[in-house]
């Protein structure tokens, strides 16, 4: 059965971007066109979820075309449950980003929208590529629109932020490229499946592991290579922040799943403690740093880092569980937890940045001190903000709980002490989130400017409402998502049991 669904999903937004550039001279035309493209892409992505056969599992919607025959590089696409989940997250979020950028972006609308759509296409490409070179092209490609988005529509320090963002991530991907070239030399091709089957010595795996670690740790980002993220977020326009937090960070976690774990399992096992330690430091250290931030966006950016640490923690706990405890059931829980955390963080961080965007559009400041008592004038907004804050605290019934809960349960099976440190997020996460809410949302009206703020308009209502539904749905009933990913997770855990050296 030949399916071109994945190609369609990749190229629809990219072609859409060109169309928007061509015909979007009028700002409103550009907006409606982009919304149409984003919506269409989302609709097209639905059959991906409904059509993925969990009973069969494995890669589906496979496409294969020869691309650079000399290098045996192929235009090869395919999706398992993990890819499907991330692609649908991307198409869903993109619609909301286009809607959310409706009013706030007033200059060069068509270019902004085009950059967003191109970014969407590249991101879907990253999640769908089964050829390492193709993956790399999309992986690098998505830097360009993001670079443009921050660099043109960003805040006053956008040049510093955008350069820092670009150089940091580019530096990381160079290491990955070297690793890929080495693997290509060994296998003669670029398919991820061939890399995974390749037998590698411990030493080779070690080098490759660190090459991948640098690339993906920067992307996630993990402590201590996280400092580009707060700066990028602070300067990025709201839509850029939402896409960055909700989707782009996930590429890092996805990379660990597709590269580090299957290609270098033995080295991953050997150095799992490094990643686990980095994750735990991120949870505690970054939590404290988030507590004292005075800029709302920085606070949520730091909170993102702490939450993404659960992704890396889960993935490498899984390895430890399989390899040292012989506990594949616990490992599956850990990988599922990491994956659910990725999807959930997409919703929650996207929603939080959207909330901050709503405030920013009204007062043009992100300083916490400039707000206070917003609930008095914006009751609906306050309700949404409190809901998303609770999701950020990992309250059961919201999506934020599910992944963290699974990861902590699994971590306990590796070591109760690791679980103890990880569970500290319950306290520190609640502390920084609720303190933010207290200072921004509650209290007497902070100043005259706050007094004049208007509650959500219809467009903002739709954006926050859609996020709210997603956050609650995943929190109340995560089974459809875990069922979708279960075959892929099982396969990953299965592959971890096999030593390659």
């Amino acid at each position: 059965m030949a399916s071109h669904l994945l190609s369609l999903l990749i190229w629809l937004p990219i072609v859409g971007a060109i169309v928007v550039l061509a015909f979007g001279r009028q700002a409103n035309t550009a907006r409606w066109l982009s919304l149409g493209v984003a919506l269409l892409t989302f609709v097209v992505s639905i059959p991906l979820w409904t059509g993925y056969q969990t009973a069969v599992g494995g890669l589906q919607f496979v496409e294969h075309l020869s691309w650079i025959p000399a290098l045996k590089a192929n235009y090869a696409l395919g999706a398992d449950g993990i890819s499907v989940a991330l692609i649908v997250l991307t198409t869903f979020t993109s619609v909301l980003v286009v809607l959310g950028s409706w009013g706030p972006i007033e200059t060069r609308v068509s270019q902004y929208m085009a950059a967003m759509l191109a970014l969407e296409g590249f991101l879907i490409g990253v999640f769908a590529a089964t050829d390492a070179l193709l993956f790399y092209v999309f992986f690098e490609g998505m830097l360009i629109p993001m670079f443009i988005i921050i660099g043109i529509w960003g805040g006053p320090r956008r040049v510093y932020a955008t350069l820092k963002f670009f150089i940091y991530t580019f530096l990381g991907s160079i290491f990955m490229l070297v690793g890929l070239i080495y693997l290509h030399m060994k296998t003669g091709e670029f398919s991820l499946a061939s890399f995974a089957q390749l037998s590698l010595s411990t030493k080779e795996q070690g080098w490759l592991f660190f090459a991948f670690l640098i690339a993906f740790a920067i992307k996630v980002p993990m402590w201590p290579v996280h400092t580009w993220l707060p700066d990028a977020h602070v300067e990025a326009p709201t839509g850029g922040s939402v896409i960055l937090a909700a989707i782009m960070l996930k590429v890092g976690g996805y990379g660990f799943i597709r590269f580090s774990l299957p290609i270098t399992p033995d080295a991953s096992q050997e150095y799992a403690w490094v990643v686990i330690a980095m994750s735990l430091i991120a949870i505690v250290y970054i939590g404290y740093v988030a507590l004292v931030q005075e800029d709302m966006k920085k606070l949520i950016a730091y909170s993102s880092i702490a939450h993404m640490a659960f992704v890396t923690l889960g993935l490498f706990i899984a390895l430890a569980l399989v390899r040292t405890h012989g506990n594949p059931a616990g490992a599956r829980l850990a990988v599922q937890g990491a994956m659910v955390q990725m999807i959930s963080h997409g919703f929650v961080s996207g929603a939080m940045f959207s909330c901050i965007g709503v405030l920013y559009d009204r007062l043009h400041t992100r300083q916490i001190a400039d707000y206070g008592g917003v609930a008095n004038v914006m009751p609906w907004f306050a309700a949404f903000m409190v809901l998303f804050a609770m999701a950020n605290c990992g309250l059961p019934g919201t999506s934020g709980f599910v992944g963290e809960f699974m990861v902590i349960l699994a971590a306990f099976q590796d070591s109760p002490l690791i679980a103890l440190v990880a569970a500290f997020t319950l306290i520190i996460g609640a502390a920084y989130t609720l303190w933010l809410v207290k200072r921004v949302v509650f209290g007497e009206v902070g100043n005259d400017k706050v007094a004049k703020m208007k509650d959500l308009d219809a467009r903002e209502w739709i954006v926050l409402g859609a996020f709210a539904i997603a956050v609650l749905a995943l929190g109340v009933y995560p089974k459809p998502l875990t069922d979708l990913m279960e075959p892929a997770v099982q396969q990953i855990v299965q592959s971890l049991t096999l030593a390659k050296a």
Partner: protein
Amino acid sequence: MPLSKTLLLTIVLAPLFGAAVAGLFRRQVGRVGAAGVTIAGVALSCALSLHVLYQLAWGGAPVFNENLYTWFQVGPFGAHVGFLVDRLTAMMMVVVTFVSLMVHIYTIGYMAEDDGFQRFFSYIALFTFSMLMLVMSNNFLQLFFGWEAVGLVSYLLIGFWFKRPSAIFANMKAFLVNRVGDFGFLLGIAGVLYWFGSLDYAQVFQNTLGDAAATQTVEIFAGHPWHVATIVCICLFIGAMGKSAQVPLHVWLPDSMEGPTPISALIHAATMVTAGIFMVARMSPLFELSETALSFVLVIGATTALFTGLIGVVQNDIKRVVAYSTLSQLGYMTVALGVSAYAGGVYHLMTHAFFKALLFLGAGSVIVAMHHEQDMRYMGGLKKYMPITWITMWLGSLALAGAPAFSGFFSKDAIIEAVGESHRFGAGYAYFCVLAGVFVTALYSFRLLYKTFHGPERFVVDAHHGHGHADHGDDHHEPGHLAHAPHESPWVITLPLVLLAIPSVLIGWFTIGPMLFEGWFGGAIRVAEQNDVLTELGHEFHGPMAMVLHGFTQAPFWIAFAGFAVATYIWLFNPGLTERTKSALRPIYDVLVNKYWIDELYQALFARGGIALGRGFWKAGDVGLIDGAVVNGSAAVVGRVSATVRWLQSGYLYHYAFAMILGLIALLGGLWWIAQAAP
């Protein structure tokens, strides 16, 4: 008749439906609609809960234990949402829905002039839903859901008047302190899954029966084997310490009085704070495995029972007296759990729910009458203005103080005797604490009554003030000045008082026999034979009348009577004496009025300490080291290198040629070296 899934779902969802309608469509349904739909929902829940209780107790219905749906299924591990309804659950359901219904009705009067009327009803209905989910759960996951959901609603309700700085500080504090408890609780749940192989109650309790469960140890720190049951139970109990406000996590409960009084009655006295007690009773098969954990429970509970009660004696805010009393009574319940008298703890939970809700609602009635004055120093002599409130509060206080034949007498005496009977480590200390606590309880209870309802009036009614009530803010006039005379509250307020007074007085008499001594709870509570103090006591139980008569000859009665006598002497007959006592006992008074300086300690250590730590990490770590030294530092290095390289790019061909040759040599040399090194 067996219980049906539909029936139980209706009980849970009716309040949720009310909450959704009142919250989301508050404009459309208006005040009457919001109150109507939530009260109808809770009333339905209450009626059906009574039906469930009847079916389980007399109708011969079997215990209901079924999953509703699967939350997720990962490999062999499934997480479900489901109900376990046995007599323990049914009792909790009735207590929760009944008190909730009373509070709903009361709220019509109490919040009549508040702008957030609909929002309030939405929250308390949502609370009822969450609490029902908690008590009806058949697994740890859903328990945790309910646990956190009631915490969320508590957060929203303490901060209900979100303009008040004190309220939004208190709600954040409550949430965070509870999170410290939940931190332990979650680890306990993780331990349950790991060591007992499931999150399902039935499965876990089944697995506790094996010999391995009691003896299995783990070395978290090398060389120190710990019993897994001890670790799990202490972790779970840390959760209970947060939710049920046990020392040292008790600090949030007094501050929670910032919330409107109806929720103090519902959440912070009758139901939510007792979730920890219920949870430990529910987990009795686990706790029975660990003598150490039970001793821990016992000592914490005893400390809470005595030392928080003492603070209540020096409080002047009427609600805070009741709040400290609640802390102390929660300590009593915990003590009961600690001596394996789980049924005794749960029994006191039930009687306490009625009389403490009554006392809070009575205090609220007084506060309304005093136009939102809460300071007892400006009250006095109110009995002639509000006789119903006065009488019902007396009944509630008598029950609280353990006057013979009142409900509190039966439940508290049973706990004290159970502690006396126990030989567990810490039981001696606990026995002292609970006996001394009886004196303290009588002291603050009657002090409250005398200062509020008796003696001279310590307020003036300013005749010249016009009509119109003050807002629900703190903006009343000078202390002790009222715009018009106090008055009895409307019937929506007094009716719940009367309806709560009835069980406060009577319920003990009718239930003590079956619930405590005749194994009414059946399999819901499991006690190891050698720990079963209640059965021991049961041998000496010959009906409520005999227990009352016997009570007159026992120490607790006379200790309580002494408290009553001292309170009467000081606060009724010699009000001047308090000042003299205060200065004579200055050091003790200072310690108590400052609440042992625990708040100050936490503020310095955790709040300011946390912020200082965060600043340190941020400025020294992120800004200084990572960005300053490494990132921007390497950027500076690149800058310098490129300056050098710019110098190299001289434009002279021979420079380039020379560089190429050097490069080629380096490359070849490198390749040669690699070739040599390779085997």
